[in-house]
């Protein structure tokens, strides 16, 4: 069959493919075995809640001894990951849409959904900008505006709604002035760097950075309510701890925390 040294390339290929297949197989299947029972929970949370939820995590751990791991991103992307079987215990979304989506797919424990905060939508510009729009209409005079991708970023969806309310979305998009980002913090980062002249983010995001300043706030009627929801992932192996976490999000202590950071209570 294969004479002399000719088997060498064939063997090499076989080994390579075996390794690749092995790696792929290792990637499948649940990862849960690494987590020791009842000592750590994983929270998938909307990017705009990064600082708040991290702080909550610290307090939670201090109180209960349970460690908290986080992943922050656009709520839509997180929902998708949960749908794909990502190992997590709690889901926090900046949009009712994605909580509903997950719930409808039976990814969440229906009995433990809560609304725990609200926010408002603002337009920000670089801190040193001379060209500050005072109203949505003045956005038309700018070159580039960063906004989260409405397909999966809640802030983007709200921005879409707000700009459409003022009949600005289509024209701005058509003139190539809209830049879509993969989450709300990326939109803010572009404004900080100055690669765009303005961005639409939450008021709570804006207050975190001294490289940006708020140009104006979008009125509540121009967009659907910005509501933060949390739910327990049905698949969770740490149900009790997850419930404790969710309950904490409804507590008075937590309300003080979020208000101090610019969120509104539900």
């Amino acid at each position, binding site marked *: 069959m294969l004479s002399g040294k000719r088997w060498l390339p064939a063997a090499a290929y076989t080994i390579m493919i075996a390794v690749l297949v092995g790696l792929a197989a290792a990637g499948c299947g649940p990862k849960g075995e690494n987590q020791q029972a009842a000592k750590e929970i994983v929270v998938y949370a909307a990017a705009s809640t990064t600082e708040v939820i991290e702080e909550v995590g610290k307090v939670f751990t201090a109180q209960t001894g349970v460690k908290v791991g986080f992943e922050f991103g656009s709520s839509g992307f997180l929902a*998708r990951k949960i749908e794909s079987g990502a190992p997590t215990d709690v889901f926090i979304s900046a949009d009712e849409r994605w909580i509903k*989506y997950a719930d409808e797919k039976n990814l969440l424990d229906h009995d433990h959904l809560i609304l725990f905060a609200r926010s408002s939508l603002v337009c920000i510009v670089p801190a040193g900008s001379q060209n500050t729009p005072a109203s949505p209409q003045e956005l038309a005079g700018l070159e580039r505006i960063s906004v989260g991708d409405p*397909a999966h970023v809640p802030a983007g969806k709200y921005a879409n709604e707000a700009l459409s309310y003022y009949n600005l979305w289509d024209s701005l998009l058509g003139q190539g002035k809209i*830049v879509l980002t993969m989450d709300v913090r990326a939109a803010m980062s572009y404004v900080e760097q*100055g690669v765009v002249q303005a961005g639409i983010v939450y008021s709570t995001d804006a207050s975190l950075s001294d490289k940006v300043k708020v140009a104006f706030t979008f009125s509540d009627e121009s967009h659907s309510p910005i509501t933060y929801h949390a739910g327990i992932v049905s698949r969770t192996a740490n149900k009790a701890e997850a419930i404790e976490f969710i309950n904490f999000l409804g507590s008075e202590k937590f309300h003080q925390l979020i208000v101090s950071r610019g969120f509104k209570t539900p």
Partner: protein
Amino acid sequence: MQNQEISAILLSLLMGVCAVILTIVPGVALAWLLSRRKFPGKTLVETVVFLPLVIPPVVTGYFLIKVFSQQKLLGSLLAELGIRVIFSWTGMAIAAAVMGLPLLVRTVRSAFDNVNPKLEAAARTLGCSPLRTFFAVTLPLSWPGIVAGSVLCFARALGDFGATAMVSAGTEGNRTISLEIFHHYQSPGHEAEVLRLAAISLILSALALIASEMLAASSKTARFGERQGG
């Protein structure tokens, strides 16, 4: 298939073509320099040219943003001329070109290395100026390599994600196939789009490779075999 997917495919193809157009002349010139000349700073030039091959593409994209940002000299100069780089097709084409250039240079340089420099000397003794020698001798003999390098550049530009993602506006009409796939991937319930685009991406790359092989093979036989009535 929706319009946005079609526009993503067309945009990817456009970026591939732009990458080749932008890189072919400087790439061939660079390849020739690296192949035929020694000069101070040669190692530095080689490193810079080949860097995008090894550093994470997002880093390349980041550098591009810094270089062309309108707050810096180059960006503002271009803005005066009405050229916007970041968040426009221009920027994406530049990103694609930067990612494809090292592959083109590497392949073409290797082709030039395989052309016996003594043949060029022989042409010079026959009255051929250095420039003419390049077109009459060096280029025809390295043509398969140039074609192969261009196709590699095209394929690389076609498939780029990291650098392109940094300079793309992200809106429909500004997403290449890779960006479109990522957009749909992040949005729950868009499995079908992801699969479709992934398949198309595979097919396009495979076609590019096959075309490159065929072109290289055919130009070789046409040249080195006997020519009838030539």
